[in-house]
């Protein structure tokens, strides 16, 4: 502790200060990750330079990050939405997979004009993602069952569903790849001038702005924030808390599910389900993004593009001493930094009166001995 100062707990948590300290914490986590890399005999500065080169050095890198950002941002927006209500949806991986699962099932089995098929797949993905969170949502809202574990357990079930589809009932028997469904016949159009980025890139950006407006200027958004702040106060104010919880969780799942549809139809080379690997833990990356952004929807975009770049660098630098495993270890450190930054925002350094200053800081209230005759 610095001499002459002590930590004083604040009663309020100022949003701006919290946001700044959260970002500082994340930076601290990255610095710690640098030391961790140094300890394992890697040069963090070389890796940083290589990462920047891999991401910004070529059109391919920038496009790679843009493609990667779609599933991560969609999952992050779903998580952030439920976080506004202090509900932890850790199952966005499963909802993402089930959205893709329903979209894939419709895509390979239904004969329809391309535009109609795309619409049906999109709606199907929304429903698939929402249904996948229905049981945890109802259990949380009505029975008070902790949603962290129920949503997460369903991830494992979703992975098995997708594996089953890829190896079993929708398997492409003509393909050399053993674990793959048939390929969906429709894709979203590419953005003109780009080789691999489809118009799916714009969806999370638009959605984030829409959510931001909803929470900034509608009654519903205000009510959800109220539930997040104090559910009992919200109930006293006449808000139907269980129903709001269910609806928000269903939308949260639907957003992640729609991310599965965007990945299936928008990402290059992802037009079939290939087992659990179809989601490269996008839900977890999305969770980090939402935590880093503190459930601020515009913050999600900034944090999401950053995490996507990091994730892309982790894949691109696999031969140069980085790996997806290390990226996840770094995620952990970033999350630690975020948590500690949030806590630090609730303290302030207060100057303690030293011996010299004691006289000037004379107590204004009488002491107990003086007050009692």
């Amino acid at each position: 502790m610095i001499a002459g100062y002590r930590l004083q707990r604040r009663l309020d948590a100022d949003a701006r200060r919290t946001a700044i300290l959260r970002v500082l914490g994340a930076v601290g986590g990255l610095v710690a990750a640098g030391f961790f890399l140094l300890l394992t005999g890697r040069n963090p500065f070389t890796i940083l330079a290589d990462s920047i080169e891999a991401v910004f050095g070529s059109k391919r890198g920038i496009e790679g990050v843009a493609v990667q950002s779609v599933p991560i941002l969609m999952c992050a927006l779903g998580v952030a939405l439920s976080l506004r209500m202090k509900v932890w949806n850790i199952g966005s991986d499963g909802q993402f997979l089930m959205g893709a699962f329903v979209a894939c099932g419709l895509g390979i089995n239904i004969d329809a004009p391309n535009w109609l098929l795309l619409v049906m797949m999109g709606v199907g993905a929304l429903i698939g993602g929402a249904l996948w969170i229905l049981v945890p949502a109802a259990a949380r809202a009505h029975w008070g069952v902790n949603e962290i574990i129920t949503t997460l357990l369903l991830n494992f079930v979703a992975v098995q569903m997708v594996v089953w589809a890829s190896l079993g009932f929708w398997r492409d028997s003509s393909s050399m790849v053993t674990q793959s469904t048939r390929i969906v016949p429709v894709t979203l159009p590419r953005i003109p001038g780009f080789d691999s980025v489809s118009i799916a890139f714009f969806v999370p950006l638009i959605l984030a702005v829409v959510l931001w407006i909803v929470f900034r200027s509608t009654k519903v958004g205000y009510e959800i924030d109220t539930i997040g702040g104090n559910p009992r106060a919200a109930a006293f104010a006449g808000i139907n808390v269980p129903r709001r919880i269910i609806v928000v969780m269903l939308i949260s799942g639907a957003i992640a599910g729609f991310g599965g549809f965007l990945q299936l139809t928008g990402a290059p080379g992802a037009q079939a389900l290939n087992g659990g690997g179809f989601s490269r833990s996008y839900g977890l990356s999305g969770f980090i993004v939402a935590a880093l952004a503190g459930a601020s929807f515009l913050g999600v975009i900034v944090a999401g593009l950053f995490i996507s770049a990091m994730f892309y660098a982790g894949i691109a630098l696999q031969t140069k001493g980085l790996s997806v495993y290390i990226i996840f270890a770094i995620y952990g450190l970033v999350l630690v930094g975020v948590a500690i930054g949030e806590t630090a925002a609730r303290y302030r350094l207060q100057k303690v009166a030293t011996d010299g200053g004691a006289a000037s800081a004379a107590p204004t209230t009488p002491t107990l001995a003086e007050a009692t005759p």
Partner: protein
Amino acid sequence: MILALIENAFLSILGSAIPASTVVVLAATGVMLNERVGVLNLGQEGLIGIGAVFAVISVQEWGIESSWLALLAGMLGAAFMGAAFALGTVVIRANQVLLGLALALGGVGLANQLGTNRTGTPIPTETQFQELDPFGVFTDNEFFEAFLYHDAVTYLAYLVVPAALWFLLFRTRHGMTVRAVGESPGAADAVGASVMGIRFFYTVLGAAISGAAGAYMVLTITPTWSPDIARGRGWVALAVVIFAAWRPFRVVAGALLFGAMISFETTAKARNWDLPFLSASDMGFLLSMLPYLVTLIVILVPAGAAHLGRRVRATDAPAALAIPYFREER
């Protein structure tokens, strides 16, 4: 004939369910200890991974040949992570959910990275835990064999540790203080208990026991390292504790249910069981979901039953679970 077949399968499921559940029993015991003092540690996947990878490293790198020392190495690795977690949650008092998920993510990532070049190298047989026959008289009876032929860690996890914890928590003065720290830290503080000290100690101890789960997994169940070694068992352990209402022996029962599903799956796949409307391979995919679905149902049913029966019941969870303790807010 059919009866013999059923009995045979039953014994096979039972015999493999007990050791298959040991991992979850240990991890859930660790979770229960953490939560009894009011600390929610969602990082079980990470702790199991770290425990496993340190056990493997101790055998392959440090040349340890004793299975007990390898188990200890795994426990120490996890205890170190647990101490870091306790520093964040108990001393700094940051958000337990965030730090727990950080441990789940970071721990799994770190363990996978440390284990990168160790995949597929088996643990030598002499370092694996061997099955004991503590009641030598029953050796010719296959029923007792399935029940009783297990290694020492399984015996510890099923009998010794739960009994010791039950006694500690419910029959000693210290245990009462420990439970008070999880239920009402303000009151515990008022009577002179060190809330921070007790929370820190039991968080680290719980992490070490969860680490033992991972170490046991690589030392005996799948005697080789593979990435993502926990495969959801950490999350299942967290669910089991809810089902078990934070009681030591119910934790064992809940974990056994999960293990029974796992070995039902293995047995059914090995014997190519099918149903009239499901082929054996489709059945296999369905069975792979079963352990997680059953775990989900198992935590939903008690809550749902209590609600539908309109039974007003105080929740079994320690009242101060996941709530940091600030003396000035008492």
